[in-house]
């Protein structure tokens, strides 16, 4: 193989690998990027049943209920206009409280309940998830 040919083959190989990786990344992104929903979006849009999504909003006051098994909790996520019931089995983070922001990872069931696999909390009491702040801002209730 001549030197020029070898360089060409290397470059082509590199291009093929990078294009392959890019295609892989694109298809994975289309399938796996978790979209972010607020309670308002849920009412407007068709429910993405069974798809991995995130739900963000505020935990509605007096809505947290613990099931008899002691480890499943139910609560309501609200943007002060619309509401979504959520079920979660596990230990909630320390900053999970009524009337504070929450982001839940999981999926919707056909009846509209959100089953959370994971409750995210940033360990900072001043923290409000940016998506939640944005959503609050839109529904006009950011400041009380």
């Amino acid at each position: 193989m001549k030197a020029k040919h070898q360089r060409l083959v290397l470059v082509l190989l590199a291009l093929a690998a990078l294009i392959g990786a890019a295609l892989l990344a694109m298809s994975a992104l289309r399938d796996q990027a978790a979209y972010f929903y607020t309670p308002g979006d849920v009412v407007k849009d068709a429910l993405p049943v069974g798809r991995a999504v995130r739900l963000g909003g505020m935990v509605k006051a007096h809505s947290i209920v613990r099931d008899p098994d002691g480890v499943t909790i139910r609560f309501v996520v609200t943007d002060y206009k619309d509401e979504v019931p959520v079920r979660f089995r596990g230990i909630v983070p320390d900053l999970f409280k009524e009337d504070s922001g929450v982001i839940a990872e999981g999926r919707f069931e056909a009846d509209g309940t959100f089953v959370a696999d994971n409750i995210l909390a940033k360990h900072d009491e001043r923290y409000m998830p940016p998506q939640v702040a944005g959503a609050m801002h839109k529904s006009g209730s950011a400041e009380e």
Partner: protein
Amino acid sequence: MIAEAGLAALWLAAALAALQLLLGGLGLTRGHADMLSGVRRIALVQALLAVFAFVCLIVLFLQVDLSVALVVANDHSDKPWLYKFAGTWGNHEGSMLMWVTILAVAGGAVALFERQLAERTLIATLAAQAAIGIGFYAFLLFASNPFARLNPAPAEGQGLNPLLQDPGLAFHPPTLYLGYVGLSIAFSFAVGALVTRDVGPAFARAMRPWVLGAWIMLTIGITAGSYWAYYELGWGGWWFWDPVENASLMPWLAATALLHSVTVLATRDGLRAWTVMLAVVAFSMSMVGTFLVRSGILTSVHAFAVDPRRGTFILALLILYIGGALALFGLRVGTVKEGSRFEPVSREGALVVNNLLLSAVLGIVLVGTLYPLAIEATTGEKLSVGAPYFNTAAGPLALILVAVMAAGPLMRWRHDNLKVVVRRLALPVLLAALALAALTVLAPRIGLLPRLGLILAAGVAAGSLAPLWKRNLRRTPLFTFGMVVAHLGVAVSLAGMASESAFIKETLVAARPGEVHDVGPYAVRFDTVEPVAGPNWTAVEATLTATRGDRTPLTLRTQARSYWAPVTETNEAAIKTVPDGQLYVVLGNPGEDGRWQLRLWWKPFVTLIWLGGAMIAFGGFLSLIGRVWRERRTARRAAEVYA
């Protein structure tokens, strides 16, 4: 006084960096022969000044000097001294000062120890390092002054985030930064070599120890950070594909590729342009990571737009340095001579595949990390990219990469016979087949990725030891042992990851004291819940006893802590390590009926993940020692011949 001294030292160091760049440039254009010693001295003094400024900030934190704004925001007199000390870099300004200090120290180290590089290239390298320094000194002085005073001084500081109050903070950021910023040396070497058109084996041999050193620290930093997150966050996970984690993984991927391509350049004078390109890319990834972590853009694109000063500053530096280096590369790459050739089936060929796959994984991680930011900035739509994306996109490539890793070291340089290579791989393939058979019989229901991971780990462990087969071990060079240990470490780490995700057992219960619950091979009795107190926190502590057959029972203590400065609750997980895995227990919330939530995990062989990481770093260390030792000996012999 101390704050002013630190600030003055920073200004002086910035001025010296400018002088270093100027003298370096003059030395290159005017060709003054004696310029090198001057530039070397300036680089050293600049490093000393930066270290002095950093020590000043540490002293301010240790003394809890409440007239300094940064100390007020992050320090507290109740904190144990270790966290006053480590709290110095547990904040934006302090960590940027550490960044700049390491940058200057890296330049100083090159000035002090580098004896191999051609004189003109060394001058250009030190000038490039100074050019990076100037930008980041300016960022510190104009946008992130750590020494700003607060008048009047408050009576007490606001304290450090309790999650950071852990010995991990004293260890993880410094090692990570040493690696991260240490890669600046590779960048400056590449720029220097492009300026003087001096890309060849001698340049690669000079650059290799510096790349190795930075890569070792980066490996240690990532491994330590993973274990820290694992035990401190109490979520039981060891990697979250969080953008901050990706910010450290991307430079590591690029540096790993560089480490292998620089070997091709040093040994066989191949991959010249590619190696220089990778050196630029590696530190560019460090700067991208710094931008992601330090600009606040990750919290929200919106927040970034509201207070864009710091973010824009780093972004401008990013564009300036990466763009500048790439432009120089574009201008000069045509003059870089073609390296020597090789056949596709050869050690070089395998290393090219290694480089391609590492670059592809790097691309996937980069796309996944930046994609949500780009979408939010352009359309306002919010989405997040997490483990499902990274595992499906990067996982298969990583597994192929590991498989190639087993074959590569068994190939000869320049050209090899495919049949012979396949024969050398017989034992690894046999072991992988045995693992496949064992898994099919014993654990038929585990997922695809963990299954492939375990099979590969078995084969690769054998493959990485194969280069020592039938060799006289006393005459085998140290760096060959380094490669073997590092590659074995990859297999060990992979085995830990796959085993953890395939065989993990979890029990989540609400339990009263006295109850017994099973997790994996253990029966765990929930003994008591009692209040306890620490230096700056109070907590409820649960004591549990885990029994397994007739072995000695293990006692576990897990706490739910409340800190008062700042007011925060944290979970301290109880972790017990036994030879075949870890028992991991977290105490949750109490219910009204007197039951406590308990989360119990049995994680078989999870410790292998970090053991493997440590082995990779140790292998790098053996290679570094071996290489430096051999270069020294070669230089001494050459000197004797000429004498």
